[in-house]
């Protein structure tokens, strides 16, 4: 047994984060029921890319049959995008633009698949090969990263960042893996439920991730409002240590319990809570030797490596006071919200809009036909949200400073608001707008109900646009200047050539008048050669 292991696996967090809020949790709405599945939807809509970036092409054709787990959209290993698999057996019904819930209301390219379940016999051998058991310990880091990439795993905490990119940190640069089980946003309970029911899966995923980046320490960060999950995780870790043989490399595993406070689950916040360190501005956690992964991501990682299952579904919290059967469900990616609403008896008559994600960082939607995405961890159907837009009127900022108290990044949110409103982009950058993590703690405490985060989103998007244009114009300017210089040089060179040619012509003409047939110069040259020869002789 490992000497680094102490039986006191769980400790309280020694460090604190600045600011934060304590919103009402609403978690018991959905965390009392065991994880379940819903009936498969008749069709799926799968976005080309989950990151709302760029357009991708595909060589799929309409009416082409696809199998469950088949790669629909491949991506390069180095790209900031993930592989998309078919969640079902079926045929491609359509490849075109769909409303996927982008805030612009614009449609995005996606694939529509009509589900056509096959009987077991009809399935090809391809499916069987996926069930082979292999020991991850025998795989190299490169193989592990490749498997993660091929399984299409992205961060399931909300941002949807491809996991294989995060795991491809330079060798020996990471020493600590932080497992983010904080789940600090109200309503959401999928990580809680996952830890209660499958703690060993999460732990195995964490071990794989730790091996991939060669981390020798795994810290589970969890809030104290999830005692059942903490107990389950503790048992899983104890069992793991009992199974450990002495041949195992030294590995420290700990659960660190933090006081419940939003947003302790933010990547920068959990790092500060667990290690007391702050990620330097403009850098990634890897600069501190830390990798942060969400519990659901690690569970998917475990499935991908140990059970060779590609990621085609995730645990989603379906909650809110309009849901007939709230709880956590395995929902395949691309399932239309309307299907979920129907299956779980959502009271659609009273529904004005629903929320993807949590009530603080999520997005509001009104189109029930939009599909769930890889990053959708929660859908809230609640009568508290009466319109798609937030309250249509807000009062003016009275500089009360509550937002400053709530800001976990130690910004001055109300100053950002004034500058964003008056579009003073330089001042905003000086106030470090880009350190803002969009946690919306400031809008939560604002007595004037100002949608502060919307102002920041607006300012960030404007500043990014200006910067992109600036880069482009600087490049064009440099290239224009270079071209001008080149043209001037060529012109000067041509001028020079012409001048030389003219001089040569003049010289030749002058010589001609003195020495019409060139005899004189030939004789002179011969004389000089003789003279030179004589001088060289001793």
């Amino acid at each position, binding site marked *: 047994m490992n000497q680094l292991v102490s039986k006191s696996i769980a400790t309280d967090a020694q460090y604190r984060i600045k600011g934060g809020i304590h919103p009402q949790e609403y978690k018991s709405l959905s965390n009392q029921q065991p994880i379940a599945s819903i009936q498969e939807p008749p069709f799926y809509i799968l976005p080309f890319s989950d990151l709302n970036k760029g357009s991708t092409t595909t060589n799929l054709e309409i009416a082409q049959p696809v199998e469950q787990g088949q790669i629909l959209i491949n991506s390069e290993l180095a790209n900031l995008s993930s592989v998309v698999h078919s969640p079902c057996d079926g045929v491609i019904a359509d490849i075109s633009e769909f409303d996927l819930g982008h805030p612009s209301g614009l449609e995005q390219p996606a694939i529509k698949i009509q589900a056509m379940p096959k009987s077991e016999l009809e399935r090809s051998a391809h499916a069987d090969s996926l069930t082979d058991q292999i020991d991850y310990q025998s795989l190299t880091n490169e193989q592990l990263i490749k498997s993660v990439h091929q399984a299409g795993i992205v961060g399931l905490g909300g941002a949807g960042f491809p996991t294989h990119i995060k795991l491809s940190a330079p060798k020996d640069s990471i020493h600590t893996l932080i497992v983010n089980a904080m789940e600090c946003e109200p309503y959401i309970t999928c990580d809680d439920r996952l830890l209660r029911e499958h703690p060993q899966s999460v732990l195995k995923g964490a071990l794989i991730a730790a091996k991939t980046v060669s981390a020798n320490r795994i810290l589970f960060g969890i809030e104290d409002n999830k005692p059942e999950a903490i107990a389950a995780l503790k048992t899983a870790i104890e069992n793991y240590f009992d199974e450990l043989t002495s041949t195992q490399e030294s590995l420290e595993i700990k659960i660190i319990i933090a006081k419940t406070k939003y947003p302790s689950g933010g990547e*920068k916040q959990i790092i500060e809570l667990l290690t007391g360190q702050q990620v330097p*501005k403009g850098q990634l956690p890897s600069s501190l030797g830390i990798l942060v992964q969400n519990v659901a991501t690690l569970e998917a990682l475990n499935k991908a490596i140990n059970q060779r299952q590609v990621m085609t579904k995730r645990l989603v919290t379906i909650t809110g006071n309009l849901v007939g059967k709230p709880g956590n469900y395995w929902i395949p990616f691309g399932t239309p919200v309307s299907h979920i609403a129907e299956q779980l008896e959502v009271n659609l008559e009273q529904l004005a809009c629903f929320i993807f994600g949590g009530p603080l*960082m999520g997005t509001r939607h009104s189109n029930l036909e939009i599909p769930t995405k890889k990053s959708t961890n929660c859908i809230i159907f609640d009568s508290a949200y009466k319109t798609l837009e937030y309250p249509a009127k807000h*009062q003016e900022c009275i500089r009360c*400073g509550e937002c400053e108290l709530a800001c*976990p990044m130690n910004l001055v949110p109300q100053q950002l608001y004034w500058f964003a409103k008056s579009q003073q982009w330089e001042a905003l950058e000086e106030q470090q707008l880009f350190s803002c993590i969009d946690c*919306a703690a400031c809008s*939560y405490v604002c007595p004037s109900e100002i949608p502060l985060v*919307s102002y920041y989103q607006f300012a960030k998007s404007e500043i990014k646009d200006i910067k992109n244009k600036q880069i482009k114009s600087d490049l064009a300017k440099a290239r224009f200047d270079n071209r001008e210089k080149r043209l001037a040089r060529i012109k000067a060179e041509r001028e020079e050539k012409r001048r030389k040619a003219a001089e040569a012509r003049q010289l030749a003409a002058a010589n001609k008048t003195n020495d019409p047939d060139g005899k004189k110069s030939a004789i002179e040259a011969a004389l000089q050669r003789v003279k030179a020869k004589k001088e060289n002789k001793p």
Partner: protein
Amino acid sequence: MSNSHAFLNDARPTHQLMMLVCLALIPGAAAQIHFLGWGILINLFICAGTAILAEMLILKLRNKPPLETVKDNSALLTGLLIGLAIPPLLPWWMSMVGVGFAIIIAKQIYGGLGFNPFNPAMVGYVLLLISFPVEMTAWLPSPDLATAAPNIIESIQIIFFGQTSSGANITDYQKLADGFTMATPLDHSKTAFSLGNMTSEIFQNNQFLKGTGHWFWINLGYLVGGIYLLISRIIHWHIPVSFLLSIATCSTLLFLIDGQNYLPASFHLFAGATMLGAFFIATDPVTASTTFKGRIIYAVLIGVFVVVIRTFGGYPDAIAFAVLLLNIATPTIDHYTKPKVYGEKIEVKVYD
């Protein structure tokens, strides 16, 4: 359709905050009415009414919804603060001029709630103090010193017509039993010092002691209201605590240097508008510094100015001047007290 911001808000709304601040004035205002007479209550009605009407008028002219905006209660609070700052029997039109100036010039011209750089109530008060120095210092003695105290009818008559039906005017009510006229303790001590009296002599004066007594209770009333504001987290400790500590420290220093020519901290803390200023005036979030470090600096400097002006200046009380002076300095203080953002190791200083 979609919206990129879910938006959850669970704060006490601004109008409720303002209303709670108004309600927290009750203990102090009640003490003031009790000791200084019905005139205060009448003033409060005149000032609050003028403030609301002036605000609505300007909002109407600015094409903003007057009823909805006036409901933020900020104009009401400004009116009440002026009503409590002026002497009890000030002629009605003076109160209206002060409040009107505060709302129209000091607040709405700048863009209304949230945009005004100066505390509107203090701008209105200072305007009155400079324009009508005699009327603005015509305080009444406490009932146990006075020869006669005006009842509610007489107060109304003096405020609106200058004299009562029996022909008495304000000077009749200012007379003490021994024929002197009464000022506030700050006024009194200032005059006494200028006449060459020592601190100990001033404190032996029976009149002074009785006069100080009722101002003590009034200040205590505002202290109670202020503590309620602190407990209910409507205001934060930074401004009141730093302000009071600053006043106590400065006055104690002076008192230690020369105990016979300067007044002790206990007097400064419970004289004049100290408590009203600490909890209700300096804490106006719109015009105070916004960073918490900045608020401490802001309040400390107000305290320094209050003691300096009270001791060496020409005016007996100085809360209004000190607050306005620091309002000017607020942007500068804010600029230099920006908190260090998460992950910002090396502070890059930008001077502009």
